[in-house]
């Protein structure tokens, strides 16, 4: 039997799973929508992976990352649970050991990770709001009546990107409405949006950080050619976009699972595991914490959300 390791990255929008072998080579992977229900999404994901995984492999470690990492970590009895920043960095380093800067713009978050000699030396995340992230771009695409996937192609056509104030979603939107009513061409507006995403990112997340090549650009927005183009133009550096970039978090956590293996063998079969979460509001003090109790096969395994530590 050969050993392999599963990494699961459960984000707010999509759930990703990757299985790697002892040499960090991807054996198989899967990508599905979370649809607001991480527990169900992971059940589905594991079913897909189970069918794809060749029979000679045995899962010797499971790691979880992403916003639902703790919950799924409990469900899968993961040997490691880590935040997505670390997981992404580790994943990227596995394939690009020389990388110095990771830019990432996802659905809700954007971050920058600086790396030197294979270790993270500094990082930052967006502080205030979601302006300039993926969800902002897709809502603007809807407003302009274009598919967000086509954004990049439109942007590349433009010669004169329009200036758009993108510091705040609300302001950007009113500015956008104004500009399109005044009669600017669609591609110029879209190019302007892409450029403002880059400027906003560099002024907020990248402020005060020395961006050195090689640079890797990840996250959903990295699929947008327009944004990539303006990053190249403004940073005057080449930007690497990996086709597997959306899996980097899952790969990273799988690598960490390999490093933290306990000898235990895992099954990808979840049919017999009952996993329930119950939410309730505590009224013992005005904090009214929203508590979440987690049951695995009717046994309470954990509860979260309490500010006072009573639970």
């Amino acid at each position: 039997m050969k050993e392999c390791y599963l990494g699961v990255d459960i984000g707010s929008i999509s759930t990703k799973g990757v299985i790697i072998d002892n040499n960090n080579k991807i054996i198989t992977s899967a990508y599905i929508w979370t649809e607001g229900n991480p527990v169900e999404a992971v059940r589905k994901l594991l079913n897909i992976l189970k069918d794809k995984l060749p029979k000679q492999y045995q899962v010797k470690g499971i790691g979880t990352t992403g916003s639902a990492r703790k919950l799924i970590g409990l469900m899968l009895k993961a040997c490691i649970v880590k935040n997505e920043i670390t997981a992404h960095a580790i994943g990227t380093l596995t394939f690009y050991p020389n990388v110095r800067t990771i830019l990432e713009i996802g659905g809700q978050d954007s971050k920058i990770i600086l790396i030197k000699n294979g270790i993270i030396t500094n990082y930052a995340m967006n502080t205030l709001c979601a302006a300039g992230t993926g969800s902002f771009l897709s809502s603007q695409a809807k407003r302009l009546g274009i598919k967000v996937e086509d954004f990049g192609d439109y942007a590349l056509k433009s010669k004169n990107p329009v200036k758009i104030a993108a510091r705040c979603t609300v302001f950007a939107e009113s500015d956008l409405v104004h500009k399109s009513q005044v009669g600017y061409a669609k591609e110029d507006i879209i190019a302007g949006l892409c450029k403002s995403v880059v400027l906003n990112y560099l002024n907020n997340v990248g402020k005060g950080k020395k961006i050195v090549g090689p640079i890797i650009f990840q996250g959903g927005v990295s699929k947008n050619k327009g944004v990539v183009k303006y990053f190249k133009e403004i940073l005057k550096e080449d930007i690497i976009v990996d086709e597997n970039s959306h899996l980097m978090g899952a790969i990273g956590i799988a690598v960490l699972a390999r490093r933290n293996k306990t000898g235990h063998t895992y099954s990808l079969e979840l049919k017999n595991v009952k996993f329930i979460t119950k939410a309730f509001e505590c009224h013992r003090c005005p904090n009214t914490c929203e508590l979440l109790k987690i049951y695995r096969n009717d046994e309470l395994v954990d509860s979260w959300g309490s500010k006072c530590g009573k639970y």
Partner: protein
Amino acid sequence: MIKIAFPHMGDYHIPANYLLSHIFPNTIVIKAPKITSKTIELGTKHSPEFVCTPFKYTLGTMIECLDEGANILIQMGGGCRYGYYAELQEKILKDLDYNCKVINLVTEGQTNIKRINNLLKQIDPKYSKIKALYYGFITLKMVKYMDKIDDYIRENIGFELTVGSFESLKEEMLITFSHVKSYKELYRAYKRYLKKFHNIKVHKPDNRLKIGIIGELYTIMEPFSNYYLEKELAKHHIEIKRFTNVHYLLFEKAHKYKKYKKYSKEYFTYNMGADASDNIARSKYLCEHNYDGIIHIKSSFCTPEIGAMPIINKIASFYHKPVLFFSFDSATSETGINTRLEAFYDMLEMRKDK
């Protein structure tokens, strides 16, 4: 009947309560309810839009105290716009139909005995100055001892062998402190507890992580407003260094400032307001003294700290040390903070291992 109340800041309600109930034996000192999410909600609802967050927290507590019957509220603050909170807060409360008076003991960052005397007379014209001086002295000592003990706790709590031993002993100590009758009694209690704290068993590995926390004073000192950052760090076995406490602000700041200025003259020449210059010097200190990282926290819109941030960034990159900046607002999400924090100490661990 006069009923006095004051907003919370960390554990300092204990000495403050002690002082007021001794100076004004004929008045009732109302213990402000603990800060909860409702407090900040209330405060935010009635505050101007882009005021800094301490205004919202203290206003929220004030409203809660007024609902419990308080009619005199005491505010202390200065050095930036904090010194001007009191007047506007009083106006806001009056517009909400509360009948109350807000007294600011410190304004423009200066403590003036004569002014304080006049203000105290407003509360009770017959208050005894001698008594006030005596209990004032005890209170200040109490603050000093509390701060000293807290410094020790911060360095060690992450390494306690029995989880909770520091916290429960501290609770016990604060209760004892609040009942002392003389300075001698306080001093003895302090010595006794100091010993007890030193006797708590800890295991401190040599390669432990050390982090310095700097930033705006209210956010640093009121754990609710920083989402219990120190507790969170302790859970991950990190030694914490913090400079700001009430004793520092009252007694050390003035002469430390000169030292700080000399120590980091290449980074600042003048007082940049509130603790901004202090924090610049502290960043340099932390970088030069083998700390693994710096966490800078402040409430949103804190002007002096915003001015200091680019300079702190410059110092940190000069020494190749990571800084994590947090700007807390009433709308900050706790998950966001935790993700950032986790990534921060993962990063520190990795740097350490190399």
